[in-house]
């Protein structure tokens, strides 16, 4: 299983499935990361975490811990 956490900067992936539950999952979905959405990984923060992704045309910062819940293809 590949998660968003493992994706290198500059790559484009699509969301396969969201794991987890409750507020964390809902928040990620609310921000537009839903099944099938394209995610472009822009960069990783200077200290190695969080990462910056482009989703639905805007820039989003997400921690690697949370990115781990997003299964991608």
């Amino acid at each position: 299983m590949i998660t968003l956490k493992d994706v290198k900067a500059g790559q484009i992936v699509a969301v396969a499935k969201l794991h987890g539950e409750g507020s964390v999952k809902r928040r990620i979905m609310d921000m537009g990361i839903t099944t099938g959405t394209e995610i472009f990984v822009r960069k990783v923060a200077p200290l190695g975490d969080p990462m910056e992704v482009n989703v639905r045309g805007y820039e989003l910062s997400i921690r690697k811990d949370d990115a781990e819940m997003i299964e991608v293809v």
Partner: protein
Amino acid sequence: MGIKIALAGNPNCGKTTLFNSLTGSSQHVGNWPGVTVEKKEGWLKGRKDVVIQDLPGIYSLSPYTLEEVVARDYLVKEKPDAILNVVDGTNIERNLYLTTQLIELGIPVVVAVNMMDLVQKNGDVIDVIKLGSTLGCEVVEMSALKGEGGMEAAQKAVTLAQTHRAGELPHIFTSRVEHAIARIEESIQGKVDDSYLRWYAIKIFERDEKALEALNVSAGLKAHMEERIADCEKELDDDAESIITNQRYSYISNVVSKSVKKKSGEHRRSVSDKIDQIVTNRILAMPIFAAVMVLIYSIAMGTSITDGGFAIGTFATDWANDIFFGEWVPNWADSILNVLSVAEGSWLYGLIVDGIIGGVGAVLGFVPQLLVLFLLLAILEDCGYMARIAFIMDRIFRRFGLSGKSFIPMLVATGCGVPGIMASRTIEQDRDRKMTIMTTCFIPCSAKMPIIGLFAGAVFGGSPWVAASAFFIGITAVVISGIILKKSKAFAGEPSPFVMELPAYHMPSANNVLRAAWERGWSFIKRAGTVILLSTIVLWFLQGYGFVGGRLQAVEDNGSSLLAAIGNAIAWVFYPLGWTGDMAWKATVASFTGLIAKENVVGTLGTLYHFLGEPGENGEKIWALAGADFGPLSSYSFMIFNLLCAPCFAAMGAIKREMNHAKWTAAAIGYMCLFAYMSAMIVYQLGGLFAGAVRFNLWTVVALTALVAVFYLLLRKGYQDEKRFRRMSSVDTKIK
């Protein structure tokens, strides 16, 4: 009856700009009851019968964040007559996500597509008429920054509010889900206003606990509806919340593809991306961040411009303290009191000049510096850099349960804790904000410097290590507290994800920035007029009056004041900290007067020892005397206690204002005092034992226990281990 219009939209959509231009100077800023979320309302310009209620910036109407709950409660319970929904045209998909939820409320909605100038500049086209007919509401174009279209949008909302006409609700979900929702609607019919029926039905489908609670449904009905939901979930092989969110977004993608024409490919580089290539660059990000911080610090709080520095803030505050509240105001008061024939030396004169002007003036003197600082912070926030600070600092701060944005309050607190606490307002997460407020005051502020300086000079031979250790202690206190609090029950409850938008950079608007700075400054001034005023009067009285020969009267000598009597009476409390013998009550009294302003600690010690020694011109003699009386170990424990304990009244006022909750305020201040007490005791008892200055006693055991307790609190598994919780749930989903 007036008309109520709610202003809703995502964060960073230009809502504040629109609100400012719609309401002008009629704004009222406060807090939503009991929470730290800011509440703003005002009249529509030229229409005193129309109230615009600004809702917090939110992405969704989910029940999870404080802002969302506040907005939901307002929309459902206060029932505004219309909603004006601001939508960022350059980021329309995610913005419309909230729109679809607002429309479901059955309240007339006007969608104002903002930043149309940017949309056009990008070469994109938004067909607002098509958008409106698909969504079933009015859609208008707007550019809030240029002042175009905002008033028209508001007028449309007023017209709709008067006719009470909500649009036809669009069918967003697939027929299977719509069917389930329709069945739930039937089940709850009659329990809510018909116009809210669909909203509640969808919320119940999502298993929204808060919505269910509000409806007060019977257990049987609940089980019945649950069955419908479970059926639907099984058929669609996903949980209800995900089904709704996914379908909402697919609906929006569909709407957008029909009514919005984008010029070029998805991941083109905008100006903002180009700026970020440098600003959040792997190598350059930290130096740039450091440079920005140094710049802010040196403008607001560094060396005053009169002393060769850049700090306008320090200059202005020096002037306010020394000239305005130091000479002008006392002189004015003096001449007014003379006219009223209040004699110098009378109690009324003392109360007004020494008590009120001296006390409140010391606090208000900070205002110019605060305004400069808040202005700079507002610029950082408005232009979009604040989000980048959180992005690059998050890694460090979240280890202590704080936010990347906590850096700024901490930095500011080295100058003064009050703006430090108030700067925490830029932190979105409620939990992070509260923890930042609780820990910021551990950082030694400029008013605590004299305390450090006094003991460094008088006891430790001017060693620079004393000041360095004070900062070290402050930072350690923040780190330890962060970790302890993070694991405590009150903070560990809901794991809060850090999913944050990095908004596009833009030129800050002068109007927004000035307003934001003034709002914060003004709330500080209001505090000074109430809590701080009262506290300073009480302390002034206790300090200046005492029983002499059985009669309450003004006393010359602090030593015979009521405060000294209280100090004497409770000095035993500090016995375990090594405050023993004759210095005990003086140290206690000095700590108390430090509550007015930390500078007073040194001032009080000066006065108290002044009466004992030769009242010579040379102050050093007094300090030498104090130093000898305290002794090195007790001096250090005194210093630690005063650096970490409850801050001055101004800062406590700021804590109260920002927490907006009596219990949280008390918890924060209580925690600081307890932490200070424990730290000082551990250092005195255990440090003394090692150095051979303190014998093994009962308190050694207590201190040891406290130390062990701190280690336990630091190392224990948190109240609810976030990561494990999540992993398990993801495993669960896989098994399903």
